[in-house]
């Protein structure tokens, strides 16, 4: 177990350095490294599975010179429990798909933006990010999670502004500033925990006294909100759509934005007895976010911005699940966690479709694209599967997570109202995605629909994406059922 996890943590960074050195072969090397990381992650989860629900845990590193009890604090390590397994599988599997897709997407044949061939900077940052996400997923305590957390922020900045255009640099900077300000909250909360609880464990929050506990929780929550683009920190995510589309699929659908909700889920799982005030804050934030996102659906012409708002809304769903967890609904909490995985693969697939459209037609504008179904039938199929999966059509991915959340909603008082609100959002989002699908793929082909054929790497990625939309709950449901308080 030990060597596998440690290899898993090291390989992506080594791969990143390798890609930084190589020039022509960076593509192939990156794909290979991502494949290896995925395999290692699967092996890790496979080996840890019999140990669930406790999972496998190792720690090392102490600051023995620190005074008092501080010297015995464990600083680093790895934890593979059901929750981290879920996150680990998500980031590595989608990571591999995205790297594979990138090898086809970032070429000079891309109509939207001709990328320079042999650009190893991209793969360096991508693998660096992959490693950071693996680090976040297997972190056994808040300190280590914070370190990797900030590493993902830096990667996000670099990757969003990859094309170095003015808009992209601005968007990257905005993302960096907003998520980093949230990250400061994390840092201050860590200081509180160190001083008052003398621990970085996830359970440390429970050891704090009343007011201090609330303050620390709110600071951590601000970090999570900023990372997961929740109101009022949501504005960076739509702007971040200037990133190359595979980056949007990975960072802004599957992985980085999930770090925020992952943190909240970790905290709730660890210190189960939380004051219901926390639940109220979480729930209110989530509902406002969902409302904001939904009313913004209808104003987007850029397909990627639409997907970004949808991501924001779905992160709100995860937050609703977590809030239900605070209120004592285990089922709702499991649903929220499951939604991390299910939404990740479904929205990732949709982003890959948006990228394929832009690759072929050179535009992401919904109003300009028309009749693409004739030119790109595979993309049409993948978009439909992704749209049905992300809006919760049985038996595809998010149906199951939404089912858990809906069922969990009834555990709390006035849960019927919550259920109704979520159901309305669900139907509205579904309608709008189908409408957008019609706009883009049906009708007589428009001028933009004269497209270049997709490279095999992108087609294969789309097919894998569709399969993941079906398979995600098969792996995810047993995993979340083992998440116990």
């Amino acid at each position, binding site marked *: 177990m030990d060597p596998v996890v440690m290899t898993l943590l090291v390989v992506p960074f080594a791969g990143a350095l390798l890609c930084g050195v190589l020039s022509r072969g960076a593509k192939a090397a990156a794909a290979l490294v991502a494949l290896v990381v995925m395999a290692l992650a699967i092996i890790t989860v496979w080996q840890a599975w019999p140990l669930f629900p406790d999972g496998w845990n190792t720690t090392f590193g102490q600051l023995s010179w620190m005074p008092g009890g501080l010297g015995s604090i464990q600083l680093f390590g790895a934890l593979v429990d059901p929750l981290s397994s879920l996150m680990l599988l998500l980031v590595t599997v989608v990571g591999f798909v995205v790297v594979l897709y990138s090898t086809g997407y970032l070429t000079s044949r891309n109509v939207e933006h001709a990328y320079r061939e042999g650009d190893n900077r991209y793969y360096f940052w991508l693998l660096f990010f992959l490693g950071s996400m693996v680090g976040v997923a297997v972190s056994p305590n808040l300190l280590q999670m914070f370190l990797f957390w900030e590493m993902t922020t830096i990667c996000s900045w670099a990757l969003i502004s990859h094309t170095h255009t003015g808009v992209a640099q601005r968007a990257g900077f905005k993302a960096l500033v*907003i998520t980093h300000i949230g990250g400061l909250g994390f840092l201050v909360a860590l200081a509180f925990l160190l001083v008052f609880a003398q621990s970085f464990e996830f359970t440390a929050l429970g050891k704090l006294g009343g007011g201090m506990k609330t303050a620390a929780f709110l600071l951590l929550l601000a970090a999570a909100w900023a990372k997961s683009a929740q*109101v*009022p*920190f*949501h*504005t960076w995510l739509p702007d971040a759509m200037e990133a190359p589309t595979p980056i949007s699929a990975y960072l802004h659908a599957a992985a980085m934005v999930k770090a925020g909700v992952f943190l909240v889920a970790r905290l709730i799982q660890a210190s189960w007895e939380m004051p219901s005030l926390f639940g109220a804050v979480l729930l209110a934030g989530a509902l406002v976010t969902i409302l*904001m996102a939904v*009313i*913004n659906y*209808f*104003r987007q012409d850029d397909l990627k911005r639409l997907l970004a708002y949808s991501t924001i809304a779905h992160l709100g769903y995860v937050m609703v699940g977590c809030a239900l967890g605070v209120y004592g609904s285990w*089922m709702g909490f*499991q649903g929220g966690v499951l939604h991390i995985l299910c939404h990740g693969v479904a929205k990732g697939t949709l982003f890959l479709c948006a990228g394929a459209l832009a690759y072929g037609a050179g535009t992401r504008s919904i109003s300009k694209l028309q*009749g693409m*179904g*004739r030119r790109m*039938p595979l993309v049409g199929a993948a978009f*439909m599967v992704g749209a*049905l999966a992300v809006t919760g*059509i*049985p*038996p595809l991915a998010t*149906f199951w997570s939404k*089912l*858990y959340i*809906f*069922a969990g909603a*009834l555990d709390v008082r006035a849960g*019927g109202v919550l*259920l*109704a609100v979520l*159901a309305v959002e*669900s*139907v509205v989002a*579904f*309608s709008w995605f*189908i*409408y957008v699908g*019609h706009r883009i*793929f*049906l*009708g*007589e082909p428009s001028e933009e629909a004269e497209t270049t054929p997709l490279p095999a790497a992108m087609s294969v990625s789309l097919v894998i994406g569709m399969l993941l939309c079906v398979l995600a709950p098969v792996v995810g*449901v047993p995993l*979340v*059922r083992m998440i116990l308080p």
Partner: protein
Amino acid sequence: MNAAQLVLAGWGLLICGAAACAVVSARRNLVGPLAFLFVVGSSVLVLPAALSVLVQNRAAETGALLALPGVQASLAFRVDQLSALFLLITAVIAPLATLYSIPYMLKYRNQGLLRYYPLFLLFFAGLIGVVCAADWLFFLVFWEFMTVCSYFLVIFTKEDRTAARAGLKYIVMTHGATALMLIAAIVTWKTAQPHSFSFEAAKATMAQLAATRPVLLHVLLALWFVGFATKAGVLPLGDWLPDAYPAAPSGAAAVFGGMMSKFGIYGLLRVFLDMVPACEFSTVWGIVIAVAGASSIFLGTLSALAQDDSKRLMSFHVIGQIGYMLLAIGAGIYLLPVNGALAALAIMAGVFHLVNNVCYKTLLFFTAGSLSFRAGETNLNRLSGMWTVMPVTGVAALIGSLSIAGVPPFNGFASKWMIYHATILGVPGMPLFLLLGILALFVSLVTLASFLKFLGGAFMGPTALREEEAEKGDVPFAMQFPQMFLAALCIAFGLVPMLALAGIHRAVGAVLPVQSVPSLSSLVGNSWAGLQLSAFGGEATGVWYPVVVLGALAVGMAFAYWVFRLGAAPRRAVDMWQCGALVDGALARYLVVEPKHEPATAQFEARFQAHGLYSCFKVAFRSVYPSVPLPHAGYPTRFMKIFDVDAWLFGPLVRLGNRLTGALSRTHSGVPQMYLIWQLVGLVAVVVLLAVWAN
């Protein structure tokens, strides 16, 4: 291998067939027959299984195929008598529709068949799953699966904007309905102790809710009702239906109109008979269902009168006909606590009408498809005289039209007669049902009128086809056979209603919430030659022997002929009536009210407008089914500004920060004396601070 396992095997065969068709979909001539083979194979398994359940009058079940302990749901195929009836329908219609599609789909030269046959087979698999599920969660999974498959069939012609809009409306409305049903299922699951999605648990829960929390039960029943009524096309929830069905390829449209709508009725029967005990809830919801049905009968059928498009006309009749079933079933549910025998009779009448409707409605959609296949046209104003070109289709259309209009001795009459009987005679304490029954009776005439329009418009008069087209003759045999087969069924069920009623009695009996289900012979007599209804047990209240009536008619006609010969009346030669009259020396189909002035076909259209007779209805009922434009989302800008955090929070903050740092940077003047003064000021500040601290 028990019946349920056989059905499961048939279901699996459909899934395999879908995969196989997907693989060979590029071979346009191969994929159709392959799909047909798989569907027939599946039917060969399902048909005897369903029959055996009905014959043995005992439900069959597979073990749990897939258990989800997290949500206390498990998938098992359970075939009870009611499921068996719907499985029979599916097993008969599915091969016919697939056979019909083989030549029809070759018409679409520039559409890939990958989006037809695999989805068509999956759609059938969804239908089978819906009736075999014994668990609300998996019921809804199959239900939505079926809906999504049918949606993709509706948008099959992907360049067609009308079809796309119709598909959008269809999927949005039905998905919303499914969401309501999912909520109902989850609430029921939550209320059940221990939590469970299974039908048994839901049944027990509803019985318990009826006693303890009636308001909640009413809400749940309303959710179920709206959900199923939307699928069945009940007004006004069926707004999508007349748009969506004509958009699909005819083979699929026939299955949608003929069969899929009826699965909404299956759901209603499952909930309101199987789940809800006979109590005051039956009374309330019986009336609701019956009134919804009657309004569908009235408005659906009257809207149909105004249609010029043959497929749209058929679609509106789907709505109208569903109304008949709901009226009877609603009356039956209302009667449950009062008179079990009469309730059984009314519900049987509704289900019998459902079975008959499957036969003639599918048939009529097939004939409309055949017309469009041969003439490339579905507008009745432009179709004409197709009888000479396609006589077999003409005969089939005639039989179907007479059946749907309820002309004896066809099957539509038998079931409608039972419905009138149950509603008009059967509910003495409730005059509402008398009214609704008479309404239904009247609308039957309207149905006849609108099908006269269909028959007259499409088949009568001079042919509008060019000669080389007309020479192609009737549609291929693969399209003729399903029509002939269904026409034969229409006649068979009309002449020997007991053929269907024997099975229907068992299907209804299995879910009827009464102590002892009255025997078949006590309800409709025990003669294979006809029906002997007894609404109040014992004495017969109505008798219908089609063979006897036909015999008497034959004797009467022979007698008339004999008198005619005896009197040696002179023969006059007159032109055959072509459903029209001479107007200004020219043959016009009907009185022309609004002549059109376009060139080219204008003269033809002016003379042969199919809707001339019905223009007053067209005006009066234009707005019954308004097409609702999709709302344009517009928000007050002030409202949107709330969420534009950049504008009112981050932007100002950044500007403020810029100003502050700008102000601070001004201290860097570059003059050494200034820096010395700053140091001095700093020193003083520190000293003051320390002094304050020390005190």
